[in-house]
């Protein structure tokens, strides 16, 4: 069964059609790469999935086999749709554990923080998911001292910890160095191992290709094509993307 299925999704802003009859789905435990140039409609699609925008009349959104009436941001959160934003989703001057539990602090009732449990959960996550083995990083370390890859790991770990069913990664490798990118990609594989689904949005197909199961190419508001990885080598994919950019068609 598909985790998410979207049928006939259109979105018009005034005169501009950002999306036109898009069909899109994410299978269970599937990592879908969403590729497309600037203005292809990637971010509009994501904002519909997270409940930020409502699709135009006639579009349907199905979640785990059930049709959703209205999808709000709060509803999307409750369903387990988590977006890993870039850098801006962390509070730099706060400790690691405060960042992991940002906005969803563990309490013992009456809003009293269960600091000890948040610290120990963070310590557990550091070893099991984040792969922080250095003794120099503790749950009390402030996030400001972390590298870009580590920060991305914190954001992804946070999403997974809160029982995300579908993790949306919005250009997670942007601005990262080579080794940091590798680390961020490892986390995407961690999502797969954890049995969850993900949508991986990026410009860079060399980052997307190795970690995804299926690639969907958006172009000017429509789905220009999609491939499972075993249908296409990286070289063929690259050639076709150039073709799309020039002609709007995936096949010559």
């Amino acid at each position, binding site marked *: 069964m598909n985790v998410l299925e979207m049928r006939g999704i259109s979105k018009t802003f005034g005169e501009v059609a950002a999306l036109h009859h898009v069909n899109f789905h994410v299978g269970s435990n599937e990592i879908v790469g969403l590729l497309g140039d600037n203005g292809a409609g990637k971010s509009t699609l994501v904002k519909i999935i997270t409940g930020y925008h409502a699709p135009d009349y006639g579009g349907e959104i199905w979640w785990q086999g059930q049709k959703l009436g209205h999808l709000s941001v709060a509803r999307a*959160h409750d369903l387990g749709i988590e*977006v890993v*934003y870039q850098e*801006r*989703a*962390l*509070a*730099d*001057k*706060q400790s690691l554990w*405060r960042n992991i*539990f*940002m*906005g*969803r*602090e563990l*309490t013992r009732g009456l*809003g*009293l*923080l269960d*600091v000890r449990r948040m610290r120990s959960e963070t310590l557990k996550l550091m070893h099991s998911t984040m792969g922080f083995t*250095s003794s*120099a*990083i*503790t749950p*009390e*370390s*402030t996030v*400001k*001292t972390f590298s870009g890859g580590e920060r991305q790991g914190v954001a992804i770990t946070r999403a997974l910890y809160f029982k995300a069913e579908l993790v949306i990664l919005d250009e997670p490798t942007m601005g990262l160095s080579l080794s940091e990118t590798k680390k961020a990609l490892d986390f995407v594989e961690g999502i797969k191992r954890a049995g969850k689904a993900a949508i991986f949005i990026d410009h860079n197909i060399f980052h997307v290709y190795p970690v995804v199961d299926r690639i969907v190419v958006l172009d000017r508001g429509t789905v220009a094509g999609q491939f499972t990885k075993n249908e296409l080598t990286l070289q063929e994919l690259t050639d076709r993307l150039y073709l799309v950019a020039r002609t709007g068609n995936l096949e010559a």
Partner: protein
Amino acid sequence: MTFAEALRPLSRSKRGSPASRFLRTYALQLGIVAVALVVWGLFLLGSPRTFLSGDIYVAFMSTTPFFAIVAIPLTLVVITGEIDLSFPSIMAFGMTGYDLVFVATGNIWLGFFTCLAFGLLAGLLNGYIVVRIGVPSLVTTIGTQFLLRGAVMIITNGQGLGMTEVQPTTLHSILVGRAFGFVPTQFFWTVGTGFLVWFFLNRHRYGAHVYLTGDNIESARLMGVDVGGTKILTFAVVGVAAAFAGFVVSAEVLFFWPTLGEGYMLNTLASVFLGGTSVFGGTGTIFGTFVASFIIGAINAGIVAAGLTGFWTSFIYGLIIVASVSIQTVLSRRLT
């Protein structure tokens, strides 16, 4: 070698040994304690006769609470990245509530709670204008500072109110009595305020949201923190605290002056910033503000006792604010 260069070696190991990590975590708290000891040492050397007797310390415990009780919750506002300059007027505005009720009913307790309610209202007004209308807090609270002072003057017609009726009451001995015959009870209220605010800041979800709101408001919002509600509540807390402090001052001197609060602006703000709370939001400690309040409180007496004129106090407050904010800015660049 500049000051910044002198600090550079500190930043070399970003994630050093547990000892250096401890130093870095508590750098601001240790710093303020060091400052307190240095200032104290200078005063002891400068005028040993004054500073070796107990009287001066009783005086500190009596007068420092007047602004420390506001400075402690004001720390929360500064951590959220905002500022409140209207608290001196709120001190008088709250007492105007007491004035109205006392004149009408003669009931001191009812007057006391009306005073707190007026403070709450004033704080909510600040919060509402900042959060819901979206006016920067610096501008908002300059406006409400005049607005509330004006309201006080109109309502009281510029007339003060004698408070001798309060003196024999339990309320008086609870708030400004003398425990064991010599310890001013307002000192215990300051310690209590400090502990209560510390608890909510560090051990309650509200405080976690205060830090997150001031650190990165955008990400806090994305993660579902009610940043607007957090700010409004914080302004409201300062409003109540300012009205409470206004009552404490008036009960101590047994008179309500409509100009009440004027003259507390500088030392209150100085306490918050000297205490290590960053103007940029996201960091700050209650412990720092508490210790800094007493440093500020001691300076006035210390300067006079050291034989300088009172004209020096303003200069030295200013020096302390400018120097502490500069040092913090340099430290936060170097230590992280």
